[in-house]
């Protein structure tokens, strides 16, 4: 949700109005973010991002080294090498391509490399399907990446730039994945406002050139955490039962600091552009006095908000929270917001087979510590790009309002929009 600010540093008329789809918006954002290395392999629905970016390279509009690698495994590997050498690295993928990156995702996070990855969310095979769900992003949930889900094309542009700021913050130093729904956002044209190049450069502090300092026994002084023959460091060598656990603690600690940085960046972006997305972590709407709240990730957030407005106008006490930051998951903040709510419907565009939708598991965990816990229902919907029309969302709200009345959850896990 975009809220207008009275006096943004760059007023709307000084921003550049462009009609682009989500992929192009991400490509423009990466271009303005002074990315040093893009290593990528094409896959629908991400292809336009790197296709557009390769045009910038061919036209000499960027200084970027473009590495057309032979697979996504290599794409992420090349980004790891580039980022370890001190470059600002970017790539994009989806679905099976993301699955092929899996091994290197963990390595990028463990080595604390601030790579930015755009994921145009798409269903995983089989059967092969090019359309949207969140099974690919849910698959990388435990890899140590920061995961942000956007709702529209404007937010895809804004968030891609923010992602570099978040990733490179000394308190974070973790890779960030920007998730935009395949086709619903990646291929849908929207009028967006972009900043002039130099404003993005200023926002990011120019090229990536400052690095965290580390202390090792063989140098007297702290040295920058990058590959440099003059100050040699080893990235990723053997680490057994003696130190592996300690090194995982570094990632655990870094994740704890992510939400405050996401909030700060969201606020700075607001001052600059007049646009913000909730507090950057959660985007609530109509939650304060609500009996029924629906949580959602990604582009469906707009449809849900539309229905909330409609039902509110008829006097129903309903609300919604869009989860923008999925990893690290904002357990405490969400529990605080859902205090006093009677029923929570959790929408998941993906499922952990044999369990529930991944966001349901986190929300269930978040609510456990509340003295009076809301009733919970998990709605799995939209797999393989199945549409989530307003009527379906409205029906779900009516069902949840009925549960609020009766206090009885008959089925904990429900499937929306599937034929029996």
């Amino acid at each position, binding site marked *: 949700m975009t809220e207008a600010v009275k006096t943004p540093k760059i007023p709307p008329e000084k921003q550049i109005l462009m009609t682009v789809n989500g992929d192009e918006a991400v490509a423009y954002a990466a271009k303005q973010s002074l990315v040093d290395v893009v290593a990528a392999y094409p896959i629908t629905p991400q292809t336009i991002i790197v296709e557009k970016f390769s045009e910038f390279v061919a036209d000499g509009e960027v200084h970027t080294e473009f590495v057309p690698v032979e697979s996504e495994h290599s794409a992420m590997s090349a980004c790891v090498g580039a980022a370890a050498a001190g470059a600002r690295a970017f790539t994009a993928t989806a679905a099976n391509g993301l699955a092929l990156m899996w091994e290197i995702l963990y390595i990028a996070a463990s080595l604390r490399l601030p790579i930015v990855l755009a994921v145009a969310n798409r269903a995983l095979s089989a059967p092969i399907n090019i359309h949207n769900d969140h099974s690919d992003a849910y698959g990388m949930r435990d890899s140590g990446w920061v995961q942000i889900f956007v709702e529209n094309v404007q937010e895809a542009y804004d968030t891609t730039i923010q992602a570099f700021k978040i990733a490179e913050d000394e308190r974070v130093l973790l890779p960030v994945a920007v998730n935009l729904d395949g086709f619903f956002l990646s291929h849908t044209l929207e009028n967006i406002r972009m900043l002039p190049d130099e404003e993005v450069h200023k926002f990011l502090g120019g090229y990536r050139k400052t690095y965290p300092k580390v202390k090792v*026994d063989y140098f007297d002084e702290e040295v920058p*955490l990058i590959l440099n023959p003059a100050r040699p*460091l080893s990235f990723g060598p053997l680490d057994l039962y003696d*130190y592996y656990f*300690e090194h995982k603690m570094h990632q655990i*600690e870094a994740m704890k600091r992510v939400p405050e940085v996401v909030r700060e960046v969201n606020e700075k972006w607001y001052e600059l552009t007049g646009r913000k997305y909730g507090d950057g972590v959660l985007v609530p709407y109509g939650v304060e006095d609500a009996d029924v709240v629906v949580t959602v990730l990604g582009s469906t957030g707009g449809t849900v908000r539309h229905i909330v407005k409609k039902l509110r106008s008829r006097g129903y006490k309903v609300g919604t929270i869009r989860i923008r930051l999925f990893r690290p998951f904002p357990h405490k903040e969400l529990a605080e917001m859902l205090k006093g709510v009677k029923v929570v419907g959790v929408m998941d565009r993906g499922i952990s087979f044999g369990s529930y939708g991944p966001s349901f598991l986190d929300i269930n965990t978040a609510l456990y510590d509340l003295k009076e816990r809301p009733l919970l229902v998990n709605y799995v919907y939209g797999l393989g790009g199945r549409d989530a029309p307003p009527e379906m969302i409205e029906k779900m709200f009516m069902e949840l309002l009925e549960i609020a009345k009766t206090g009885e959850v008959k089925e904990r896990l429900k499937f929306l929009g599937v034929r029996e």
Partner: protein
Amino acid sequence: MAELRGYKELPIGAIPFRLSTDYKTGDWRALRPVVDHNKCVKCMLCWIYCPDMAVIWDGEKILINYDYCKGCGLCAHECPVKAITMEPEPTE
């Protein structure tokens, strides 16, 4: 081995805080190469094949650096005059 450090004392990024030469990988060894200098013809094939650069030429004869020799046995296998034998590590 120095005392193990806590995570708050370690550099981030899982980089080693000591030089790799400080990690004595020789203690992985189960069998150790032993050179019979009466048989050795100083052809240096062992020096060429050793994957850990643990064969050293001191100007007159070859020596094995047991700090880093992992006991793979390549040197013994490649020696054309069978001057190197793999023997069990002495147990104490």
